[in-house]
């Protein structure tokens, strides 16, 4: 097996949780090879053990990790699991380098990017200061950062998320590694940036003739760049094979499910397929199409007229600079329909959502809810309307108070709005809602940290439902979730809309998700709505260049879905 750059054999990793319980087995004896000059994708949901496997390759497992003695990770004739620390330090960064998920936290904020690139070069390549800097400029140029001579002196916070990830990639390829491990490198990024980064990694792989181990939860993104795909679930490899085989003839139901659960641009089933459909069910899909769209006769529940929001940054001692975030936004939300709002980070879409809720004060404009201008109400008058417009935030890890049990979280809003006769009735309602969003009754007594991301988002949804709102603003509510979990939450939102006739404002950077959920779609860029149309219309006949760009950045998987005309 001379052409394999790395062989993982029987990798078995356990974590000691505490003294009493049995160690948790995260990886259960997996084997796979990384051939030279190829891209291997390691795909699986959170908790499938994919990142742990990668960290084991680098020797970066946490203290409580135990690797079984029969496990072997062979690189260049050596077993990395038995290598001593100095040897590992020589290999890390030079032969095997890594890109992490969060570029914001992976870069050191107090050093310029040039210093950080130079550090790698001086440590491993023995370059001098001047040489390292020159090479740094070359590298930044290679990863496509404009004006590298100047940008090399920038601090990480002066760059955008995509640029930071490019810097991380520059650092990773600085020493011409033989193997690049990319651990969810695009998950924290917008779809458009994701596409650029994927293209960049593919280009560099070819140019430098290195191997890439690409770790992701989204099978869709690896179709273009991977040669081989390894699908992991619960610490076991369910299926591995060439990318063609995996995408065209998936064997394992789990692989099929991962392929099916991402919303597609060309179809809109009533329910998205989820993993359980494939594993427990008969594998038949609910492919019945759902019709979406608005008509002029729809009753309007919420109307926004010429909404403006300007932030002021302090500048100098007394000066301030105006930063317009939302410029003249107007739209109508028909009752029981979904209005999608799509755009990249910084386009102002979240600000629109927060301003509607009066979580931000609008600079000017009107928000008419049943004919009443919400922005003109006093705080006290607003209370009655607060109940009726609710918001689900992006990050389910941050939006639930860590010190409150789920029960307290659910009962609190009912108490505030005097819903339910007494405590007992409220608790009963909370239990019903937990059941409705698919959580067990025991959840009532647990704390948010005991739940996974998808479950927490269900709690957040349940909290909104306690107030029986009419309008629900979903602010990137599924963006932080794995695609498979995302499908479940989207189905739940869909069911709730059918059941309670809710109206949604669905905010996301992912046009595929927005298109699936929405009747009408607004595309936002730099605080302005550039295009607004029914969702099928916008997909079939995008008028604006920007919309076309968004559409083309959606990962198509292997078989390249039909291009929008």
């Amino acid at each position, binding site marked *: 097996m001379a052409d394999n750059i790395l062989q993982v054999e029987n990798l078995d990793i356990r974590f000691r949780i505490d003294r009493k319980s049995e160690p948790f087995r995260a990886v259960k004896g997996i084997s796979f090879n990384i051939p030279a000059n190829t891209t291997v994708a390691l795909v699986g949901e959170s908790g499938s053990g994919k990142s742990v496997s990668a960290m084991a390759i680098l020797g970066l497992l946490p203290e409580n990790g135990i690797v079984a003695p029969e496990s072997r990770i062979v690189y260049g004739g050596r077993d990395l699991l038995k290598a001593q620390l100095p040897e590992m330090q020589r290999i890390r960064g030079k032969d095997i380098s890594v890109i992490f998920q969060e570029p914001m936290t992976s870069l050191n904020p107090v050093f310029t990017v040039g210093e950080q690139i130079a550090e790698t070069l001086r440590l491993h390549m023995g370059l001098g200061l001047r040489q390292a800097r020159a090479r740094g400029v070359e590298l930044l140029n290679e990863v496509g950062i404009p004006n590298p001579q100047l940008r090399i002196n920038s601090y990480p916070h002066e760059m955008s998320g995509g640029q930071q990830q490019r810097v991380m990639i520059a650092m990773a390829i600085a020493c011409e590694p033989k193997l690049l491990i990319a651990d969810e490198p695009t998950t924290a990024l917008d779809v458009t940036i994701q596409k650029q980064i994927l293209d960049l990694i593919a280009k560099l792989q070819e140019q430098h003739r290195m191997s890439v181990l690409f770790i992701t939860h989204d099978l869709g993104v690896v179709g273009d760049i991977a040669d081989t795909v390894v699908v992991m679930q619960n610490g076991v490899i369910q299926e591995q094979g060439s990318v063609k085989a995996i995408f065209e003839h998936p064997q394992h139901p789990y692989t099929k499910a991962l392929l099916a659960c991402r919303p597609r641009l060309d179809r809109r089933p009533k329910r998205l397929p989820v993993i359980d459909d494939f594993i427990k069910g008969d594998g038949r899909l609910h492919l019945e199409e759902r019709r979406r769209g608005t008509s002029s006769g729809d009753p309007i529940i919420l109307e926004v007229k010429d909404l403006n929001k300007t932030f002021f940054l302090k500048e100098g001692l007394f000066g301030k600079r105006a930063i317009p975030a939302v410029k003249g936004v107007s739209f109508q939300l028909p009752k029981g329909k979904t209005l999608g709002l799509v755009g990249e980070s910084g386009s102002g879409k979240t600000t629109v959502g927060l301003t509607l809720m009066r*979580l931000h004060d609008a600079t000017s404009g009107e928000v008419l809810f049943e004919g009443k201008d919400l922005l003109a109400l006093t705080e006290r008058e607003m209370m009655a309307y607060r109940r009726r417009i609710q918001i689900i935030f992006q990050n389910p890890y941050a939006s639930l108070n860590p010190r409150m*049990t789920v029960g307290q979280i659910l009962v609190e809003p009912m108490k505030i*709005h005097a819903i339910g006769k007494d405590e007992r009735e409220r608790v009963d309602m909370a239990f019903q809602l937990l059941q409705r969003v698919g959580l067990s009754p025991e959840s009532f007594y647990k704390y948010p940290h005991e739940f996974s991301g998808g479950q927490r988002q269900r709690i957040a949804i349940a909290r909104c439902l306690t*107030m029986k709102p009419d309008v629900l603003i979903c602010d990137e509510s599924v963006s932080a979730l794995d695609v498979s979990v995302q499908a479940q939450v989207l189905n739940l939102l869909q069911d709730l809309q059918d059941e309670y006739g809710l109206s949604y404002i669905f905010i996301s950077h992912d046009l595929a998700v927005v298109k699936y959920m929405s009747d009408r779609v607004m595309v936002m860029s730099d605080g302005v709505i550039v295009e607004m149309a029914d969702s099928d219309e916008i997909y079939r006949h995008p008028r604006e260049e920007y919309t076309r760009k968004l559409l083309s950045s959606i990962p198509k998987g292997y078989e390249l879905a039909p291009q929008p005309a």
Partner: protein
Amino acid sequence: MSAVLTTPQPVARQESPGLWALAWRRLRQDTVGMVSLAVVAFFLAMMLASFTGLIAKDWSKEKGVSYANPSFLAGAENLEARSMATKEAAKAPAVDLSDIDPLAPRYREWEERAAKIAVTETKRAESLPFGGDKWGRDVLQKVIKGSEVSIFVGLCGALIATFIGTFLGAMAGYWGGKVNDFLEWFYNIFTSIPYILLILAFAAVAQATGSFGKGVVSIIVILSLTGWTGIYRLIRAEYIKHGNREYVKAAQAIGATNMSRMFGHILPNVSHVSLVQLSAHVVGFIKAEVILSFLGFGVPVDQVSWGTMLAEAQNELVIGKWWQLVAAGASMAILVTAFSLLTDALRDALDPKLK
């Protein structure tokens, strides 16, 4: 706060433990926490018993010889007691002046009358359980009596200071803007004055006007009015950090009032800062009471505190009488260590993320 912390009690469903019940359950598994809780409880019980007069009532009685040895060192030489005794003995032989004394004929009558009054000669003890002070008072009883003032001052002062600091910090951090500017200005003035000078200024005003009452109460007021600044800054920073978190935004979205967001939602998440500061300040205030007492602004002379004991101990140490220093110092060290371990354990127990 209670509005949020009360846990619903569903009937016919699993009993739901509240925040404090859960915290108590977690604390009980923490050996260090429980031991320190026991120690703190012991000190508090001692303080109460002494306050109600159950123990150490007669701490001011001069029971032993001057600088009586501790009983475990009973045989040691006590030069001070002996020199005192020789001085008294030297007085004994008086010159007979009866032939020139005009009152001499009546002496006999007086002596007869005096003999009728029962006089019991108390023998001063050579040694006391933990030694005696200059006047032969029992050091152990002094320590117990002294705990009354010291613990009371330390705990009350620290609690009030933490309360002021947390409240103002929450106000400044949560509201920002003008409120923050004003409180920051206030804080800057406070911290620009040297600490001891500030205490003395407060003490002088308190003594002159008598507005805070005398003695212990005025010390508590002085210490808590000067000690809140550090806590204020830390809590303010925490509130600025948490004020923008999504869970607070979510609380606003469901219509929670500002007060509920400040104290129901954010406070439990920053309470660890307050708790650690509380324990640090208890320690600091017990020591500050020493300083105040030493400078004469503290407790009156007819009362005893660990502070006054330490002040006395300075002179005694020169002549080799170490027990008063050890007694006061050790009880202070034990209490303070136990208290800070307890707050650490409490902080962990209140955090649902730590098992």
